[in-house]
């Protein structure tokens, strides 16, 4: 059980980075970005390209990768931010200016998702790929097993969450983003440049999701469908927490990560004991959805949402 909990925290860290992006876009740009998952995959593949293109400087002690991975993460985050700004300029901004509804913005983002996934299949093929070699897990008390890479995953996620939090809390543009999310009309009245708020929202949201994809790739493997699959728990984390709150997104993601891992494990043991031939891992997204329905029945505005 303790091991499943730890697995849930690791998965939760990866979901957190995606969920913060989704919640910021939903809050400030007013639509659920269906391209978020495939942006996550694309970020992972870009890192794969950079890791391959760079000379090897050896691995960090204990980890399955070296300094080139840090550079690959940074490059991938920067390039994905550029992609996001590009898609905003050619697609989302014209739609906003024509007063498109949230539904059409979301559907357009679905189009972006398919475009990105097609490019991935075209360039990298459909087969699973890996950044580096396999890694043995270390054993800890209570039957917990953790791979050294997984400390890196959780640490990097935490570092990025704190960085974003400080950005939103301390910088002028961060405060303006929170102001615009509170009250867009008043933000305009006070002279806040809404265009730069939109740009920074994309930069933060999509660079985080690129990092999330790379960490997910380190943890499991890199596949064209990886982002689309994790998009469901990301959306559920945002809905469960209530749109618009960075810490909320993190708590929502942790709840979803831990619940998915633990419930999957518990139910699998149960079915095994009953000699039923059911593979629970296939139903992980269903667990996320059931959890979402339960939360929304009792708190339609989400756990942290104010209902505004």
């Amino acid at each position, binding site marked *: 059980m303790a091991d499943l909990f730890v697995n849930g925290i690791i998965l939760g860290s990866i979901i957190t980075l995606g969920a913060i992006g989704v919640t910021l876009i939903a809050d400030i740009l007013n639509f659920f970005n269906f391209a978020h998952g495939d942006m996550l995959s694309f970020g992972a593949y870009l890192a794969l390209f950079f890791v391959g293109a760079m000379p090897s400087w050896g691995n960090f002690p204990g980890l399955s990768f070296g300094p080139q991975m840090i550079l690959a993460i940074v490059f991938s985050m920067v390039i994905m931010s550029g992609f996001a700004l590009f898609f905003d300029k050619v697609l989302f901004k014209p739609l906003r200016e024509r007063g498109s509804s949230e539904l059409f913005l979301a559907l357009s983002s679905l189009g972006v998702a398919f475009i990105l996934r097609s490019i991935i299949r075209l360039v990298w093929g459909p087969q699973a790929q890996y950044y580096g070699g396999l890694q043995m897990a270390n054993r800890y008390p209570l039957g917990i097993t953790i791979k050294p890479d997984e400390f890196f995953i959780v640490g990097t996620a935490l570092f990025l969450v704190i960085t974003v939090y400080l950005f939103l809390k301390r910088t*002028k543009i961060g*405060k*303006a983003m*929170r*102001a615009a*999310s*509170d*009250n867009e*009309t*008043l*933000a*305009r*009245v*006070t*002279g*806040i*440049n809404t265009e730069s708020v939109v740009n920074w929202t994309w930069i933060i949201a999509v660079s985080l999701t690129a990092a999330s994809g790379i960490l997910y790739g380190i943890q499991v493997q890199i596949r064209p469908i990886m982002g689309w699959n994790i998009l469901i728990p990301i959306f559920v984390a945002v809905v469960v927490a209530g749109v618009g709150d960075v810490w909320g997104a993190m708590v929502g993601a942790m709840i979803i990560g831990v619940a998915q891992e633990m419930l999957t494990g518990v139910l699998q043991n149960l079915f095994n004991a009953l000699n039923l031939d059911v593979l629970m891992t296939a139903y992980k997204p269903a667990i996320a959805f059931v959890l979402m329905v339960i939360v929304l029945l009792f708190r339609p505005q989400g756990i942290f949402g104010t209902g505004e």
Partner: protein
Amino acid sequence: MSLLNVNNLSAGYGEVDVLHGISLDIDEGELVATIGPNGAGKSTLLRSISGVIKPDEGRLELGGTDITGSEPEDTIRMGMSYVPQDENIFPSLTVRENLEMGAFTLEGDFQDRIDEICTIFPQLRERMGQKAGTMSGGQQQMVAVGRGLLIKPKLLLLDEPTAGLQPSLVKMMLSKVEEINDRGVTVLLVAQTIDALRLANRAYLLSAGEMVLSGETEELLDTDRVQDLYFGG
């Protein structure tokens, strides 16, 4: 020379015309009220002057400079602040952050301005770190007006700053408006009550988007239209 000159202004929302050929003048240091029944276009007038909505026709000048069609960020740089009637704070931001947003377009830390705002609204001093959304209606209104004062405006556009307040707070807020004007800020006030109107040197009466009457407050108070507006008829 007048600080604000509005000449033959027409404005509205999309296909809906609200204001029809409004003209008015405000001199430096004045406290001028606009009055009128609900739906007369008072709020639309302030929104058009501040640049939140663009005029369909007419000309706006601030200190002799043409500001017709300017964005709010430009008019703020030129020293004009606008405080809307409602939804005029950022609820999840602290009081200090709300005040800072008043000078988003300008550089600097504005601590001296925040200090001066706290001398006008002492209750805000202890609450700088509190989220504005958790405050009472009266305190939120102080935050909103304080935000408008941050740039040390030449002209402050105040849309019914007493709306929704209980009577004791209405009196307090009106005395603050008077104090702000005494400190040298020219004020254009949407006046909902007769007490608010009495603060003003002059007033303009709007009805159905047209300017129907203007003049010294004392003279206007004697007219039937103003009597009807405030005392029914």
